[in-house]
């Protein structure tokens, strides 16, 4: 099942609503990193409001996705972690998510915009017509 990625200016929004299989997870990460690169996104908000259970696999998935996004220069905020999910995450181990968190999407966007405003490249236009070419 493909997870839709929405674009809001220079920010991308994704909402993970179901448990993902290994294949879905890889597909999702692949789609997202390519979209971040293509749009030169400055921020990514990952909304997991709909997840009532986050086990270590999903935690790792979210954490890895955040790392990949950061390597591509995007600020990342996770939002919508349910209270009991937060509890189990903490009980299972430390820093399983590894990214900034916000209460809900609105807060997440506020935080992202704040982080973006501090950046040196926030006023650059994104993408030329020739786009970014990776020789490989």
């Amino acid at each position, binding site marked *: 099942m493909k997870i839709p990625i929405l674009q809001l200016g220079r920010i991308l929004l994704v909402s993970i609503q179901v448990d993902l299989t290994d294949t879905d997870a890889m597909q999702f*990460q*692949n789609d997202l*990193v*390519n979209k*971040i*690169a293509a749009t*030169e996104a400055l921020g990514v908000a990952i909304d997991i409001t709909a997840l009532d259970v986050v086990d270590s696999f999903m935690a790792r998935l979210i954490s*890895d996705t955040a*790392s*990949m*996004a*950061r*390597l*591509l*220069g995007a600020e990342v905020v996770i939002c919508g972690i349910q209270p009991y999910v937060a509890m189990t995450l903490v009980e299972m181990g430390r820093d399983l998510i590894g990214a900034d968190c916000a209460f809900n999407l609105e807060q997440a966007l506020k935080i992202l915009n704040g982080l973006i405003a501090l*950046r*040196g*490249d926030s*006023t*650059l236009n994104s993408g030329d017509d020739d786009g*970014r070419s*990776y*020789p*490989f």
Partner: protein
Amino acid sequence: MTVKPFSPIDNLLAQHRAEIGQEWVSDVMALWGRHYPGLVSEDEVRQQTSRLLDELASAFAGHSGVTPPQIASDGALAASARELSMRRAKAGFKPADTAQYVLSLKNVLTGRLIRELSEVPADLATCLAAVDDVLDRLSLLTFEAYVEAREKVIAQQSVSLMELSTPVIRLWEQVLMLPLIGVIDTLRARQFTESLLEAITRYEASVTIIDVTGVPVFDTSVAQHLMKTVDAAQLLGTRIIMTGISPEGAQTLTKLGISFSKVTSRATLRAGVAEALQMIGRRVVVVSGAGK
């Protein structure tokens, strides 16, 4: 009476050396002239073949015994063959064309022996075997020398390429840029790290942009080299901005569990430059009235 089963070869080389040499030269020039027009002079080839033939003749002349003469690796024959090979290698000849040089002589000698000894098949067989033996070994020798010389050339070229391909660029007063291109191995990593550290010191650079757009493969070893470079630079007080990681690179690095702490990462070089400028308190603005 001493046994000299190879005396036909000896005689051939003694009496018909000039003709053999001429035949050999034309064959070689036909081949090389076609593949490498203008690269070889006939005079040069004539000189070399003449010398080789002289040495080959002495090898057979002084030799008695049932096995063919050895080619001493420190002898004159071997030395000539090597020198010839190295010249070809430096000139950029293909391996097969170099090997062909000795094989041409084999053809010439074989042809003549067959004509001479057609009535004496046993002697012919012995002599052909000897020619095969000696010239095959000579051929191998020339090939070895060729390969050695080629490898030296390639090594020299890659040193120059290495120096060319990782310059440290001074982008702005306190901003350096290190564009990395191609394969990153231990040697290169050491080289560009040294250059970078020298430059940081010389220019008191407070920001360094490391651009990896040109790095095709991001694996553990590349990442480790980079981390060392980053760590060393940070010890000198410079802040690191890494630019040009591709989507694939981002996935690979993350799956390998590699993260560059305290490094600002940006997808494009220009985003990295903007970031660097901000770090030194500068900004690019439109100047009113400018532009032609």
